[in-house]
């Protein structure tokens, strides 16, 4: 059973966040260990396994980026795992230039501007995934998701850079 089916939700990129929360909390109650204390060991084991799968499904689907990567896996998109390298020049050039700009950003305002731009790029890229999933265009999905991974990493680095600047100005 995939994570969507586990939570009784449609396998959609633009999942309704409130519906996701409702499904999660309801199943969490259903399989809560407190309800199985007086039950036989096999029932307790089943409940604990169900609760763990529900938690994992929720964790995976809650964040839009993580959801997109999970859906790509279901669609058979081949993404490089740990320790695998890529040499896509457009993608890496963009990532390299963005990181250089962040490295050169000397004020909190400059970092914020770059971070805001990156957030916009992430939203735009996420919005563009829908039609790629519909068309089942695996090559384009792979490229878009790798770009999203670099944009996400950039956002993380921008937050770290911002904290450093705040600390040194304090």
């Amino acid at each position, binding site marked *: 059973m995939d994570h969507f089916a586990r939570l009784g939700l449609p396998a959609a990129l633009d999942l309704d966040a409130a519906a996701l929360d409702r499904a999660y909390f309801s199943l969490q109650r259903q399989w809560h260990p407190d309800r199985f204390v007086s039950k036989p060991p096999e029932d307790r084991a089943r409940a604990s396994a169900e609760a763990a799968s529900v938690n994992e499904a929720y964790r995976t689907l809650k964040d839009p980026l993580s959801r997109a990567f999970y859906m790509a896996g279901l669609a058979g998109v081949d993404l490089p*795992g740990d*320790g695998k*390298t*890529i*040499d896509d020049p457009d993608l*890496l050039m963009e990532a390299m230039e963005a990181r250089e700009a962040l490295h050169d950003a000397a004020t909190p305002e400059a970092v914020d501007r770059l971070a805001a731009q990156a957030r916009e790029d992430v939203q735009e890229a996420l919005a563009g995934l829908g039609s790629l999933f519909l068309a089942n265009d695996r090559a384009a999905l792979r490229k878009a998701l790798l770009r999203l991974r670099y944009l996400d990493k*950039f956002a993380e680095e921008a937050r770290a850079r911002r904290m450093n600047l705040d600390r040194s100005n304090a």
Partner: protein
Amino acid sequence: MAYSEKLIDHYENPRNIGSFDKTAEDVGTGLVGAPACGDVMKLQIKVGPDGLIEDAKFKTFGCGSAIASSSLVTEWVKGKTIDEAETIKNTDIARHLALPPVKIHCSVLAEDAIKAAIADYRAKATKKAE
């Protein structure tokens, strides 16, 4: 986790940071990335008329092990022919820096970067010869 002195030295005093003009005929550029950790590495070689690598530069955005691996490779390739430089293995890098197992992929990135730089230089040289 304890890091080796060599690794820390390359991380704290990286050699050969910078860039060459990537359009120059005697420059080969390798640009590689590890998407799982968001690292991006650029490694460039400048080849002299005698066929020896006379200079090398790198720019890496990533963890300390990735920076140290690329710094080490730029040191190693200087004075070598491109054929010799091509034989550098990630295992040599990992052993020299005593990289912990979880950081082995950083040395893979550095090996791929030098290979890509050499391939780029060769492609330019072939084009020029035509």
